[in-house]
């Protein structure tokens, strides 16, 4: 008994030590990136206020579009997979729609929504981000274990309780995986979108101005700075969430 307790304590110490070491390494990484970023902004003659304002505006746009894409994607995925007959009809339609290039919508939206540049960007951005989220959830729903569904039913999980206590936690890793891909695609997309729609604040707009003025060095610094900021968002936000969501997965 004492031997078992000793083993347990030593294992706990080992886990704690490993966790502390992991946190320390992550902290050193982030501190290094932050330092590079500050040095870059300070020494490169890059207008860091414009750069950071632009980044903040693009981050706000991407975040709003992401929330819209997440809500619509989740509702669509759960609706489409609710009944086999609905899935048979609508899944191929969604499959075709996802291959439609979102940039092709710009001329239509610019013509129809002239003067509403924010709405145009958000609409097309959300449309671009929705597909990985939607199909990641659809895949998870189709692959989920029947026994888990039955357990939820037997133990009385119905309606909104089923959604909050069973469906969403079960789908959470897939929601996160789809979100990470969607978020990445959103950032690829927003640079082009801001250039096309010609907004006045945004990282795409700012980099575009540097390009137009042939300020190649500053453009390169700007791109590197953007990459570092996005890397930090992934490291500080998405990866911890994903690690937490998948920590207890695949148990039985």
């Amino acid at each position, binding site marked *: 008994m004492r031997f078992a307790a000793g083993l347990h304590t030593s294992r706990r110490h080992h886990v704690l030590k490993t966790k502390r070491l992991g946190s320390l390494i992550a902290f050193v990484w982030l501190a290094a990136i932050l330092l590079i970023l500050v040095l870059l902004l300070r020494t490169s003659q890059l207008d860091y206020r414009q750069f950071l304002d632009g980044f903040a505006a693009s981050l706000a746009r991407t975040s709003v579009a992401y929330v819209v894409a997440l809500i619509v994607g989740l509702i669509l995925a759960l609706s489409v997979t609710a009944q086999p007959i609905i899935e048979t009809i609508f899944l191929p339609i969604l499959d075709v729609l996802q291959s439609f290039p979102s940039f092709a919508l710009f001329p239509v939206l610019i013509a129809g929504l002239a003067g509403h540049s924010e709405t145009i960007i958000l609409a097309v951005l959300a449309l671009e981000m929705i597909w990985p989220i939607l199909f990641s959830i659809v895949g998870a729903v189709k692959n989920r274990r029947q*026994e888990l569904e*039955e357990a939820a039913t037997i*133990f*009385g999980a119905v309606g909104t309780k089923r959604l909050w206590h069973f469906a969403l936690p079960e789908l959470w890793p897939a929601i996160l995986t789809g979100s990470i891909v969607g978020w990445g695609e959103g950032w690829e997309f927003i640079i082009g979108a801001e250039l096309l729609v010609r907004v006045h604040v945004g990282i795409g707009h700012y980099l575009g101005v540097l390009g137009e003025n042939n300020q190649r060095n500053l453009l390169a610094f700007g791109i590197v700075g953007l990459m570092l900021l996005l890397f930090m968002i992934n490291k500080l936000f998405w990866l911890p969430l994903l690690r937490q969501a998948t920590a*207890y997965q695949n*148990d*039985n």
Partner: protein
Amino acid sequence: MTTNSEPIITVQNVSKTFQIYGRAGETVLSEVNFDIRRSEFLTLIGPSGCGKSTLLRLLAGLDRKFTGTITRSPGLKISLVFQNFALFSWLTVEENIGFGLRMNGQNEGLIKKRVAEEMKLVGLEGFGNKHPKELSGGMKQRVGLARAMVMDPDVLYMDEPFSALDAFTAKTLRADLLKIWQQRRMTIVLVTHLVDEAVELSDRVVVFSARPGTVKEVIVNDLPRPRQLREQKFYTLADRLENLVVTNN
């Protein structure tokens, strides 16, 4: 004693055919008739694929697409233990066990108390904050059993609950299950393909034919408890059951 008690569930002419793209596919159960009595330990046994687990799901109300009738006494509370545990990986042991009570809107104080009682009953004390991933197969099935027992069921359905476990763990869990059953006296309906398990545990054994499954015979097992697994009488009944199952093939 239990074999003479009143039927609480009656299965009459139950047949089940799976639909494939809306068309009738393979029939897995055909004209099944038997009853389940209060406080008995009933085992459903038969060759692989004869529809035992399907029937259990019909009995539990998880599948309502069948012909025939299943009549239940009013107000029966049921619960189910799954073959592959079916634990919720994102919840701790305590949260898994209390899941059903929480879904039924019980207050947190009562949930905590009932969960602690069931954890003690099945030997899970000290494991409350673990996640299923951190448990062995035997411990997982103890969680599955506690989760079912916490609902205080009148009928406990068990779908091959020991088949995913090693022989030693399964033996220990069978002994624990018998103890719990003798304390609580709920009705247990167990699906198994193991003849010895059926003889060791049950009051009656419903033997199914090969697919489409139908009731071949209902055998009353009146060997005295605790059952002696190495006695002649045990072997004789086990042989009789095995012959019935094998000849069904």
